[in-house]
């Protein structure tokens, strides 16, 4: 991001989603979704399995055009920009995919190094240093030369996290970061997310089912409701828990207990 960009856009929300409809062919997954994410905010997308969270992420990342609606990054309309401009925007975005999506023909070190090789002019030695630093952040020191097929599911998830953070992006997207992690690693991950926000002012968009982690990290959130096929709540999850009257939101936040 250039200096001028940052100055102009200071007033705009970092990411804004405006009236987006998600659909596969004729099958409408979610409609009328609108929300804004402020710079440096940890924003959680909640919702039951299959309600379209990953699909929403795909639309925000340029992998699938929305049938309706717009996505803005710093006030720039993402889907109306040229492919080059979109790639430029995405250079500042790190992504953890739901299944990890590590490149299977490359070792962990190569996986983390590729974004750096593509988008920076660092020397091989510098890249190697950054790679081992990122892998140590996610607790995978010593696994540099392993291939993804030689790792467990949770390790793949953590390595993919390391790759997402490789370029120290402005925005991080995490699709269910703690799924497949043990409670301690999940907790460490939450701390890492909070730390990234504190130290680098990273905006973090997290898709999550993990209530404990949601309450621990979220500044703001939306709830996508499977029944009505739209978003039914937005706000801090704690506030939602105490105030929301929507039964689906309540029961999600209380693991199905009837709400007060």
């Amino acid at each position: 991001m250039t200096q001028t960009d940052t100055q102009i856009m200071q007033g705009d929300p970092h990411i804004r989603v405006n009236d987006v409809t998600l659909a596969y062919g004729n099958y409408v997954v979610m409609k009328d979704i609108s929300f804004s994410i402020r710079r440096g905010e940890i924003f959680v997308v909640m919702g039951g399995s299959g309600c379209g969270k990953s699909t929403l992420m795909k639309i925000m990342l340029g992998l699938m055009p929305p049938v309706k609606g717009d996505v803005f990054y710093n006030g720039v309309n993402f889907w109306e920009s040229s492919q080059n401009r979109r790639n430029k925007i995405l250079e500042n975005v790190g992504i953890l995919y739901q299944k990890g999506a590590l490149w299977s023909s490359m070792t962990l070190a190569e996986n983390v190094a590729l974004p750096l090789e593509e988008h920076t002019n660092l020397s091989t030695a510098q890249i190697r240093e950054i790679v081992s630093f990122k892998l140590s952040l996610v607790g995978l020191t010593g696994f540099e030369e392993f291939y993804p097929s030689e790792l467990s599911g949770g390790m793949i998830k953590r390595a993919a996290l390391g790759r997402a953070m490789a370029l120290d992006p402005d925005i991080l997207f995490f699709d269910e970061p703690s799924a497949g992690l043990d409670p301690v690693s999940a907790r460490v991950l939450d701390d890492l997310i909070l730390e990234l926000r504190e130290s680098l002012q990273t905006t973090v968009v997290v898709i999550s089912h993990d209530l404990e982690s949601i309450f621990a990290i979220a500044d703001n959130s939306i709830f996508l409701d499977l029944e009505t096929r739209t978003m039914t709540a937005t706000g801090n999850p704690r506030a939602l828990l105490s105030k929301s009257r929507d039964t689906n939101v309540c029961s999600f936040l209380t693991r199905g207990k009837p709400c007060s």
Partner: protein
Amino acid sequence: MSIPEIIQQPPGTISFSTPAKNTLLIELSGFWEIGGKSPSAKEVQDRIDADSTISRIIFDSGRLLSWDSTLLTFLIRIIDICSTSGISVERDGLPRGVQRLLTLACDNLDKKQVQLNVPAESFLARIGEGTLKIIISSAEMLDFIGEACSALFRLFMAKARFRGSDLALIIWECGVQALPIVSLISALVGIIVAFVGVVQLRIFGAEIYIANVVAIAMAREMGALMTAIIMMGRTGAAYAAQLGTMEVNEEIDAFKTLGISPMEFLVIPRIVALVLMMPLLCVYSDIVGILGGAVISIGMFDLPVNQYYDQTLNALSITHLSIGIIKSAVFAVLIAISGCFYGMHCGRSASAVGDAATSSVVTGIVLIVLADGIFAVITNAFRI
């Protein structure tokens, strides 16, 4: 459990009675288990149809000895039948476990009906849709080829990005590792051509011309065609499966969002590797085939070695050889394109990967044979 015991299990049965007006009592008894005998919901349907006054169904399971999903599916059918004809079903008489599972299943069934509301399509609509699909997929293929061309162009402008180590690995896989199977098939083809040919030519006392037949057949046709078919099944299918798996695992998405074109990073090295390796394999196959033919002709039919050697050299012209080599380069492009195209357009499941591999091989072989035919027409027209 011994066999007689199983036989002794009384099968599941139902019996009907009407304890009160408008009420049908269904008594369930015996063993309702998977693999055993049990009545179908049709009997109940018939009973309801026969007596239109029924508006309530109750159950008695006092003599029910054992149950599993068999009973549940039976009951769900009954509930279904009754809800369409407006009859109420009271579940009180059923065992508690059955009641609980029924509640769970019915809740979820109801939800599913809300979501899936796909109208049944008529035969003509399906034909139309199928045709559209073919047109769309051809358009996608053209789109893919166009994109590949522009990526190739960038490659020549030295702007395309892929890793040299990837290219080396792919070349190793589609070149060196293919040698054994290409050797085997080519030698066999040479042997077969020689065998069939010698027997026929002998009738005219012209056995020695088998050297020409084998040399020309291998160089012009069989070398290129056989390597192409082998490579389609071996490498083309592998490309489809590799890229398909990457699509399933979101790896391709990860490339795209990083601003790396999967076309440049994944497809171009595969096309380049095959275009470099296939002509070499083709020449290799020509040589092995001619040797195979020679072994049979000289070993089994006692043709003189010197003469055979001279005839072969006479017959082999640069024209024949280069036609084979040019063809194999074209086949290489077809193989790489059909393998990569189906891989990149793979669905999102494991079975989709299998489908992608199958479609790529079928399409690839059709394209290869078509191209070979076109070559035959062209070379014939120019008399080369």
